[in-house]
């Protein structure tokens, strides 16, 4: 059997044009041996979920700097569950206040990586928590 490649969808939900962070993560994940599908900007939760399903990803990594994370992140988690894809690991990053993290974790997001987090940490988390 061929060695498994972790597939990650790096997604930018909502009306947020800041993609530098997403691209930094994408490159770091690639350098760690993962296959990274980049969704592009201004994706709706429905678009993200559809892409995640078609690409059969192991991880959905969302980047959001517009403040709408409390609405959009759980929405994506919910839609994934409704579409039989609840086993996909969901992580997020961007401009997310620490105070919001517990709420997000209760609503389907496994971990949030705020600005300044070493990419190695995110990579390790993904490798350790991806469903085998």
């Amino acid at each position, binding site marked *: *059997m*061929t*060695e*498994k*490649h972790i597939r990650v969808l790096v997604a930018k939900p909502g009306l947020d044009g800041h993609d530098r962070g997403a691209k930094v993560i*994408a*490159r770091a*994940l*690639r*350098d*760690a*041996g*993962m*296959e*990274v*599908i*980049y*969704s*592009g900007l201004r*994706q709706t939760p*429905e*678009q993200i979920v*559809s*892409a995640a*399903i*078609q*690409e*059969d990803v192991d991880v959905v990594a969302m980047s959001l700097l517009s403040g709408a994370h409390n609405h959009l992140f759980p929405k994506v988690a919910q839609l994934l569950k409704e*579409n*039989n*894809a609840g086993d996909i690991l969901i992580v997020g990053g961007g401009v997310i206040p620490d105070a919001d993290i517990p709420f997000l974790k209760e609503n389907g997001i496994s971990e949030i990586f705020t600005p300044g987090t070493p990419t190695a940490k995110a990579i390790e988390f993904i490798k350790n928590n991806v469903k085998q």
Partner: protein
Amino acid sequence: MELIKKARGGDQRSIARIISYAENETPEAAEVLQKLYAFTGMAHIVGITGPPGSGKSTLTDKLVKEYRKQGKTVAVLAVDPTSPYSGGAILGDRVRMSDLTLDPGVYIRSMGTRGRLGGLSKGTASAVKILDACGFNYIFIETVGVGQSEVDIVKNADTTIVVTVPGLGDDIQAIKAGILEIGDIFIVNKADRDGTDRLLMELKMMLDLNPDKAAWIPPILQTVATQNKGITELADTIIQHGDFLRQSGQLIRQRRERLETEIFDLIINRITQQIIRKQNEDGTFEQELQRVMDKEIDPYTLVDKMLKKIFK
């Protein structure tokens, strides 16, 4: 098998799962591919290749929309290069096809080349069969534009489209011999740019010199994909090529040749895997390798030894 039924019924998660099995060569893969094979053969498989930045993804996006208007279902396999160092890949073609993500008649899958050099990944051929068996009318394979001979695309597509753009420095350089021989349709994309006329002329001259393919003379079309120009004509030309292939018997000939190549590729793959597995079991390879380094034995003798172990 439940998964197959769902996939053939249009459930995208099931289709996606099966493609993953095939790509990862899991134990389930063989059985699924065997069962699906009988349903293949109906799709028109279109390969799109060309240098990086020539607009393949944008062109594909527009073509898919055109065929959707005609009520056809379309699958797209977008292949991007895997880093030979890290084994990872950024699969970015999907970005250009965002609008299509929610269309239930469209399925887009990104694949990394995973070590293959001919422009496509090993899993692409399987993915094509799976999508064919699931009933898509068109399957587009969009491949890494390595710039020279995209050998793999010919092994997998009925119609091969070569995309070029003006202004890539020395235009002839961008159109090396290998590509010219495999194109059924040539596109000059971004045809609103300077250098278009020159490129058209160069393409025409090079195609005139090519004596083969007399029955189908590859047309050279101009498009400006971002402005949706030339797309309808291109879509029609693809259909015409499909008609030509069927009427001339060329389709059957091509598919037979491709099948033969595929069978031998599968054999080589299987044998290689068996050898690697045997070596891992024995655990003697490192020692043997050192013996070759020390010139105790030569590499050819070692290869004979290794092969004898599985071909007793």
